[in-house]
């Protein structure tokens, strides 16, 4: 470990074991909750946890659950999530959440046990090359080979996980290092000269951006998860800048909640299953102001036809995001919060800056008239959209957090559940991890014990992590798992219908469990609902139940998720109403 030689002699060195150093460093970093699973190579750390009262450890049922729970904790609090797992399979089971956190820029510190130093490289029992495996899916990682490096490494890991573009950092600690005695140093002594993320925008970029904003007649804010990551202040500044400019706002899946969905200038989500008005506004705008988003392929659709007539401003803390997919006219490398602050200050100084947007608003209103999220009435069965809509109506006035799994239900949740505040919406956007939502809900509930935490799930996704209901029961975390059960891997079924001639290869869930009995087997409460007339009352029963609930909501089986930008098409080619598959050309069929 050779990052930085510190004058350790100057700090008051306290001597303790490596395992104690881990606990001490976590405490100094303000960690109050961690998620984990013990095993041979982390037993000394678990032993140190045994007599530690200031850190709550949530025992999960599978290491993947610990990782997603830490992500849910992080995303809902703004603080880094912490997970602790053993070597070998413990570490490899963490690879999915680590990659998930990397894709969605979630601050997370993962501590993995490792076989003793002298056994590394011998194919020892439960050995794997954790730093090798996680090198390409973590923001950074460490193998600690000297106990005197341990405290500094942990503090550095927290610094890296939480600053710049946040992400997961892995610390692999061999068992002998956990037993060895070394000196503890505090976090104030830690700095890393080669790691200096730029957070302040350059003045000339702000000036150029303001000039474009002033000249715009068809502007749109396109915001993303970066606004959430930048903290609540960034969301507040976005709202202020929007109020000052009057520009309409759309957001990526990850950015929902940064701007209030009830606002008259809110366009809804952008992208493949976003709103008709948002996608058309993105296509027809003359100025796009991208704040903390990264022009993901779910957002851009056909890149060569993406917003052809617009100038583009791109605010991002990660310089590699700029010009990666879409060439922009004014790049602003900065923390969203700082850039928005500078834009707001500059805007206020321009006299009569607020441009006349009447024509643009009129056009947007015409798009809104398409009412793109409308869906057929319940036809004996519950429409999945209706289920989410009722869930929203019955929970919107409460202190509610929503997580999701991945698939159709996730898109319906994004379309029909509306968010007023940041940090209330937790979903796996970049990696698209089925099985994210349930453990994420565990993490969210651990951070917000008094709040209503709901995982809007699909019956296929949730079964990937079903065992975590047991975690919720053990730790008295009263999460609500609201399953939109259509007996299909719905999004797979939809794509097979549209792109593979209705050849439904292995997408039907045979032998589904009885979710009510399954809930009861875990010691949770189970509710099933198939009648639209009973839905409200049963949702209220779910909300009123003091413990974890599995809600099996039987919905229309072959509903398609619409509207949809067909693969390989442009924003203005969005299909509303119904889709047959013929809209997708040969090139589009090859895309994911």
């Amino acid at each position: 470990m050779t990052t930085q030689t510190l004058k350790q002699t100057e700090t008051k060195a306290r001597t303790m074991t490596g395992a104690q150093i881990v606990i001490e460093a976590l405490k100094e970093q303000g960690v109050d909750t961690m998620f984990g699973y013990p095993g041979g190579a982390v037993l000394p750390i678990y032993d140190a946890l045994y007599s530690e009262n200031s850190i709550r450890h949530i025992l999960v049922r599978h290491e993947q659950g610990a990782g997603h729970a830490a992500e849910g904790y992080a995303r809902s609090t703004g603080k880094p999530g912490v997970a602790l797992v053993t070597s070998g399979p413990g570490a490899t089971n963490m690879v999915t959440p680590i990659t998930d956190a990397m894709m969605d820029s979630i601050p997370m510190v993962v501590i993995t046990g490792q076989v003793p130093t002298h056994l590394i490289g011998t194919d020892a029992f439960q050995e794997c090359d954790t730093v090798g495996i996680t090198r390409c899916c973590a923001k950074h990682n460490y193998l600690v080979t000297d106990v005197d490096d341990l405290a500094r490494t942990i503090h550095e890991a927290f610094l890296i996980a939480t600053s710049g573009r946040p992400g997961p950092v892995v610390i692999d600690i061999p068992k002998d290092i956990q037993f060895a005695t070394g000196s503890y140093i505090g976090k104030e002594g830690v700095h890393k000269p080669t790691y200096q993320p730029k957070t302040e925008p350059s003045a000339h970029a702000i000036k150029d951006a303001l000039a474009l904003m002033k000249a715009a007649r068809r502007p749109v804010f396109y915001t993303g998860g970066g606004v959430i990551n930048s903290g609540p202040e960034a969301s507040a500044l976005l709202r202020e800048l929007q109020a000052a400019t009057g520009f309409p706002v759309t957001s990526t899946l990850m950015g929902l909640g940064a701007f209030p969905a009830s606002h008259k200038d809110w366009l809804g989500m952008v992208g493949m299953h976003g709103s008709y008005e948002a996608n058309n506004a993105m296509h027809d705008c003359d100025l796009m102001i991208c704040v903390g988003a990264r022009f993901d392929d779910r957002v851009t659709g056909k890149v060569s036809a993406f917003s052809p007539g617009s100038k583009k401003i791109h605010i991002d803390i990660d310089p590699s995001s700029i010009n990666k997919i879409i060439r922009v006219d004014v790049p602003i490398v900065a923390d969203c919060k700082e850039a928005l602050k500078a834009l707001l200050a500059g805007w206020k100084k321009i006299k009569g800056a607020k441009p006349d947007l009447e024509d643009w608003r009129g056009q947007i209103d015409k798009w809104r008239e398409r009412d793109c999220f409308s869906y057929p009435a319940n036809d004996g069965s519950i429409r999945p959209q209706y289920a989410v809509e009722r869930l929203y109506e019955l929970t919107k006035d409460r202190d509610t957090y929503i997580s999701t799994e991945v698939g159709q239900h996730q898109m319906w949740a994004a379309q029909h559940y509306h968010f007023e505040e940041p940090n209330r919406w937790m979903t796996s956007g970049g990696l698209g991890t089925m099985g994210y939502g349930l453990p994420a809900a565990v993490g969210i509930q651990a951070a917000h014990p008094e709040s209503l935490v709901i995982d809007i799930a699909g019956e296929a996704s949730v079964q990937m992590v079903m065992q975590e209901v047991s975690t919720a029961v053990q730790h008295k975390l009263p999460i609500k798992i609201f399953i939109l059960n259509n007996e299909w891997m719905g999004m797979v079924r939809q794509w097979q219908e549209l792109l593979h001639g209705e050849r439904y290869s292995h997408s039907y869930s045979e032998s589904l469990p009885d979710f009510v009995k399954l809930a009861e087997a875990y010691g949770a409460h189970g509710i099933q609902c198939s009648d639209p007339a009973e839905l409200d009352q049963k949702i209220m029963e779910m909300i009123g139940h003091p413990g974890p609930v599995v809600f099996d909501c039987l919905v229309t089986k072959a509903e398609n998720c619409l509207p949809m930008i067909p693969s390989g098409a442009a924003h203005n080619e969005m299909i509303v109403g119904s889709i047959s598959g013929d809209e997708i050309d040969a090139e589009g069929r090859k895309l994911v």
Partner: protein
Amino acid sequence: MTKEPIPASAYDMDHAEEVDERRTLAVLVDNEPGVLGRVVGLFSARGYNIESLTVAEVDRGKHRSRITIVTTGTGHMLEQIEAQLLRLVPVAAVIDITKSRRGIERELALVKVAGKGEKRVEALRIAEIFRARVIDTTNESFIFEITGASDKIDQFCELMEPLGLVEVSRTGVLSIRRGKDAG
């Protein structure tokens, strides 16, 4: 924003015209375990090319290593390579040696040539012209040590080919910038 007239959108520019360029990058990194793996992994994961790569610690006190990478790609790709390298935590700086007018590139090669009679004499004569040194000899072979820009070494090897070239070992490109300043 640059001063040149900007097209209404990037799509007004003709991307199809983009051609691959060769670029030499000097990457200054903290010499910590796995740092080379991170750099190489980035290139393979994102589908970038590595034509040559050299690495060694250059400042023991600061634990600083210098990696010189020769890569090819479109202008857009090269821009991304630089940005992605800077995202790696142990990377302190990326210097584009090719674009810099002050860049110097050198390579060292060991070249084994076997032959007798007139060919052997000719090999020695060419080596003299290229200022290559003989560092090992038997009755039937030479090993030459040659330094210079990569194309000079290419040319040397080409000339040795008909004279009994047996094998070549090259360091890959090393780079530095002229003038009194570092980096």
